């Protein structure tokens, strides 16, 4: 009996995780990619596959099936900035998507950390201590920096002053009856009942 329950639980985990990821990626396509700047070399659609892999891994790890309920979450939200401290083990792609989901007030320019350093600091001796290289600078600060160096100014980031998608991880419509019927069918098929 325990083995049947465990196998059903695993099937539910797989099936529901895939459904959640599918719905999240649909929202990503409809509510984030449609807003991006096609000319932006760091546009979020470039990181679509990376974000999908992140969701798959993160959600499948967090789905818990017990006898009376199913719970799930996005375990690694610290990589997207949903915690007090940013999880250092993140990437530029996740940082960009995390910032878009959180929303940002004001006008910013997306630059690399090295560019920011060249603008305002001569000290390059210290280690960055992270993998991320992208960085947002306030428009006023950026304009001041490029004016000092005589650089051609870049455009303001398309997602500046964007209220974000605060319910990105909260809005699901899971049809559990459908999942369970599908799973019973798979189970019957697998066990030739």
């Amino acid at each position, binding site marked *: 009996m325990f083995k049947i329950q465990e196998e059903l639980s695993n099937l539910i985990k797989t099936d529901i995780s895939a459904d959640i990821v599918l719905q999240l990626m649909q929202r990503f396509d409809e509510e984030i990619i449609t807003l991006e700047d096609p000319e932006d070399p760091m546009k979020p659609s470039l990181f679509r596959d990376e974000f999908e892999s992140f969701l798959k891994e993160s959600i499948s790890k967090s789905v818990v099936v017990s006898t009376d309920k199913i719970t799930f979450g996005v375990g690694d939200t610290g*990589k*997207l*900035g*949903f*915690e*007090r*401290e*940013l999880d*250092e083990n*993140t990437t530029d792609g*996740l*940082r*960009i998507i*995390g*910032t878009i989901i*959180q*929303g*940002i*007030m*004001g006008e*910013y320019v*997306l630059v690399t*950390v090295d560019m*920011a*350093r060249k603008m*305002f*600091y001569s000290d390059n001796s*210290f*280690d*960055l*201590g*992270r993998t*991320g290289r*992208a*960085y*947002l*600078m*306030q428009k*006023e*600060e950026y304009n001041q920096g490029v004016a000092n160096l005589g650089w051609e100014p870049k455009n303001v980031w398309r997602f500046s*002053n964007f*209220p974000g998608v*605060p*319910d990105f991880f*909260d*809005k699901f419509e899971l049809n559990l009856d459908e999942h369970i019927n599908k799973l019973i069918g798979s189970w019957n098929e697998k066990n030739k009942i």
Partner: protein
Amino acid sequence: MKRIKSEDLSLHHYVKNYILRDFVEAETVPLQYKPEESSTTSYVYGAVSSTIPSPASRGRGWCYLDNAFDTTEQQNSVIVYDAYNAVISGSNYIIDYIDGRVIFGNQSIIPASVYYKWHYIAVVDEWPITEIPDPPVVAIDIASFSKEGFQLGGGKRVPRMVYFHIFANDSAERDDITETLYDGVYLKCCPNQEFNNGTVIDWNGTFNIDYTYTTYSGSSELKFDNVVARSIVLPLLAIPDRDLSQLSDVNKYRSRVNFEMAHWDEGF
């Protein structure tokens, strides 16, 4: 007025005047005559304040109620003095609570200074696209809604998702405001006001003397549920070891409080 608008206003009123009632500051400053804003029937005096954030900035303003659920204009939150420090009776002037101005009908009395209480936290009802207020700021975002029928009988439950976006000056202030907002909605409800005769403050910033406190007939209060608070760090602004941002940044210390706001309507 549409129901969603009145719910938005009811929540805004509750947050600004009740939940954040302890975040009120007071100061006494000189009043300066503003000839360019005056006419032969109104003499306008503006408060000269160097306080940051400005008491007259968007989402703040002077306190127009002495207590959160008063229905009459304040009596003790704004006091105007003449050059001899004598109190000038409130019957001689009206107050623009939004822009921090005192308006007299004639020049027989000359005011010199004003004492006022003001809202330290800017409460705005949308993401501020054009003018970014100085922090602390609370942006109230009422998002999606869906209506659910009762299992028995007529009527419906109307839930809406609400987000408080908090922008603070430092982490301690962020945590303080976040916890205050969380406690203000956790296991709580607020009146679902109808605003039949308009909101408490009129379009010109003065107190609306026609304002009446009425709630919707056949409808419940606004009940809050599923409250979640969390800090936010913006990944693209977070650079450890060295703070690259030279200017103050409104996004540095942020958090969010999410919850569901619902009321029940009787079936008619």
